[in-house]
């Protein structure tokens, strides 16, 4: 039995999807929590969800999520190119997802830089990265739903 003949034996095929979903859900939830909406709309009043109204808590979790996500992205990329590419190929839907994720990550990196004590961006640049980070996340949600509905997966077997 070899890896080529049993591509589904890859452990990554089992844990990538739930990990990706959990990470993206957490990032989306805590990201939207940066807007003052969860308290206004009683969501933070639901028992156990009070932390959603704590901007520092959601920010902290968002940052931890970003740490895990960056590690995960690099791991996934290296494993794909080093191991899985022989048996699988990325779909066009995957390339769209990757492009949006990259835009989210890049704007997120700039947001993190902006929050460092000695970094000051221009007001225009600050506003553009703040809003585009949110917009790209909304794109990801829309495309994610569309791809799920039309069953457009990340990988297809060669």
């Amino acid at each position, binding site marked *: *039995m070899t890896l080529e003949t049993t591509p589904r034996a890859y452990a990554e095929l089992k844990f990538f999807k739930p990990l990706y979903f959990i990470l993206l859900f957490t990032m989306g939830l805590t990201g939207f929590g940066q807007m*003052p909406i969860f308290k206004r709309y009683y969501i933070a009043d639901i028992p156990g969800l009070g932390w959603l109204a704590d901007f520092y808590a959601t920010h902290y979790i968002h940052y*931890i999520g970003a740490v895990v996500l960056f590690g995960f992205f690099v*791991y996934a990329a290296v*494993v794909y190119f080093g*191991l899985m590419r022989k048996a699988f190929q990325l779909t066009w839907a995957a390339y769209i997802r990757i492009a949006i994720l990259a835009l989210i990550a890049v704007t997120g990196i700039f947001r993190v830089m902006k929050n460092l*004590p000695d970094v000051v961006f221009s007001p225009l640049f600050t*506003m553009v990265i703040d809003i585009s980070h949110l*917009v790209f996340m909304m794109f990801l949600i829309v495309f994610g739903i569309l791809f799920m509905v039309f069953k457009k997966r990340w990988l297809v077997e060669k």
Partner: protein
Amino acid sequence: MPKELSRRSFLKGSLAAACATCAAQVPLPASAKSKDGQELATLIDIRKCIGCEACVEACREVNDFKYPEPEKPFPKMYPKRVKVADWSDEEGREVRDRLTPYNWLTIQWATVSVDGEETELSFPRRCMHCQNPPCADLCPWGAARKLENGITVIHPDICFGGKKCQVVCPWDIPQRQTGVGLYLDVLPSLAGNGVMYKCDRCYNRIAEGEMPACIEECPEDVQVIGPRDEIVKEAHRLVEEEGVYIYGETENGGTNTLYVSPVPYETLNLAISKGPGQPHFDQVEDQMAHADNLAKAMVIAPLAGLAAAVGRVYNATKKLGDDTGDAS
């Protein structure tokens, strides 16, 4: 400020286009730089203040054109827990004993014992202009921003009035006025609630080489302004030579407003009225320290992911080689 153009542009086309259009309307107060590029800080010597409120009046006079002129009646907001914040009537506009959207600087009073003698102290309170301001870091729209000269401003054409900046501010400085701003043109009933206002340390005057009004009009020279290094040095000199106490040097990681007081701030804090629009003198830890630490972890995380993945690929490839060898 071209408010109407900015609001309408936001509604047209895609959000990206709106960003660019909004940005084109935004004045670039980043030009308000100190001469040597350093952040500007102010030093407020509490011992000198006589509580005459000349600074308050000067602030109100020169910033009058920035004050909100809300449209009434206010749009009905949902859900019901969203409350109107209105200081725009005649009585509200005249309030001076706290921070409001129409009063960005207030005088606090404290009766304390100085060298065994009961003394009444007064001192101006306003935005501390943090070196790493949570209001600007955490504003979801980029409406609150820190300028290169260390001033933190809130742009009234971009702010939605969600009050997040006040919630994350250790001193609860920004104050909300309903019925004005961008939210009126977007979803006035469902999102936003006006605009947040606070001291912008007369960034427009500084950009033109003038002094902030509160400093210029003070008859007792309570405040001085200069590069932060020099301001901190002067504060330390006063500590060593005159035994005063400093506030603002390390609070929230350091602010661009330093106070020197003849009594410890614990004492002062107990003697002042605190509450909405009346800032405290508590010790404040760096609210954004977690972000600084986790930013470092974000640099390390991809390396950890790379190491794990290389190990995984190496082991799998090795196993493949072994399996292939066994098969042959």
